[in-house]
């Protein structure tokens, strides 16, 4: 069972839809409340980045089923402007929108695995996994 569900991000309220779905998925897989909150927060950050910087995009969820562990994979994709300097956005406190600048580094700390691929001018894809402990 390795199906994917996606939520399109177009309006600000889609962020709420995305993290609701993510939280439900996390609950199904068997995450505790703290990890559910972590996942929901991470999704919120990723979805807000899409909404703020790319305008539209989507958040997808995939159940991970390894031999000895289960997890949730969150994929955020957009066709926005992309990120020129990835090491810079992964720094705490770096922001272009006047926010706190804790979004992406925060997501990295909230999740277990984090991977970012960005092509300036073409878009960004972020994959983040949280494993059930």
């Amino acid at each position, binding site marked *: 069972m390795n199906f994917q569900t996606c939520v399109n991000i177009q309006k*600000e*309220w889609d962020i*709420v839809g995305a*993290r609701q779905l993510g939280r439900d998925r996390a609950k199904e897989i068997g995450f505790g*409340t703290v990890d*559910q*909150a972590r996942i929901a927060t991470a999704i919120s950050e990723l979805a807000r980045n899409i909404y703020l910087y790319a305008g539209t995009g989507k958040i997808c969820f995939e159940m991970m089923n390894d031999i000895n562990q289960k997890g949730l994979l969150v994929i955020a994709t957009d066709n926005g402007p992309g990120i020129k300097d990835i090491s810079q956005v992964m720094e705490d406190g770096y922001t272009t929108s006047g926010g*706190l600048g*804790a979004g992406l580094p925060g997501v990295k700390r*909230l999740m277990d695995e984090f991977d970012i691929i960005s092509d300036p001018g073409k878009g960004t894809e972020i994959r983040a996994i949280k494993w059930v402990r």
Partner: protein
Amino acid sequence: MDKQLKNLVLNNSDSIVKKWLEEISKNRSNEYTSTISEELFESTNREFVNVIFTSVDKQRITSELDDFSERLINLGWPLSYITDGLQTFRRVTIDFILTQSEKIDSEDFAIVLDMVDNWVDPIINQLVNEYSGSWEHTVSLQRVALQELSAPLIPVMDNITVMPLIGTIDTDRAKLIMENLLDGVIKHNAEVVLIDITGVPVVDTMVAHHIIQAAEAVRLIGATCILVGIRPEIAQTIVNLGIDLRKFPTKSSLRKGVQTALELTNRRIVQSGNKEDGVEKLLDSLNKE
């Protein structure tokens, strides 16, 4: 030609209705209407087809159609029932007309199609409009309802007010919160404001950012802001995100927040003297006399 076709259809309404009902029942099992009881489904179908025929007959949107659509909306029938029904009606009617005439060339065919479209399309438009109108109405009502419960400021004691936040905070709400907070502080002459986030499901960097800004603004007008209702899981995500909330005091519950607020305004809660004690003292003093 128009009249002729219309009369043909109206005079043979029985056979068209029969065919239509058959088709509709065939569709039934597969999806949305499966939870509706058999009798209700049948009677609604009959009514639906009657409504279609009266509006075809009169060539305009009738009050029956309005009543019918209103009832369907109130009962929560899916829109697809109506669109499916009308599409089936179109198909069945065209089929019927074409089988009635022996020879049909392409020109006649186009005329028939056009005619039936002219009957059916206004009905579809009307019904879809009414449905979407009712949805839009619901959405706007809910938006107003949400605004109303958005960000109240409650004065609980002299110089102490509480703002409980419930639900998701988006940009609009964040603005409203800030305005209400500052207006309220001035209006109630508050020295301490407690912002309670027990009911906020997710605190991400944006929400935290807005709270920090609100607290900073409150500080600028000379009051203190205390953030209360931080659940353990929210505390952990805030730490993971690396958000610095050291600029103002935070507490786990509203109760502790109120205590701190009282301390800040040089007050505290004291238990009033025990009643029984008072009575005994009174008795003692009476005995002495």
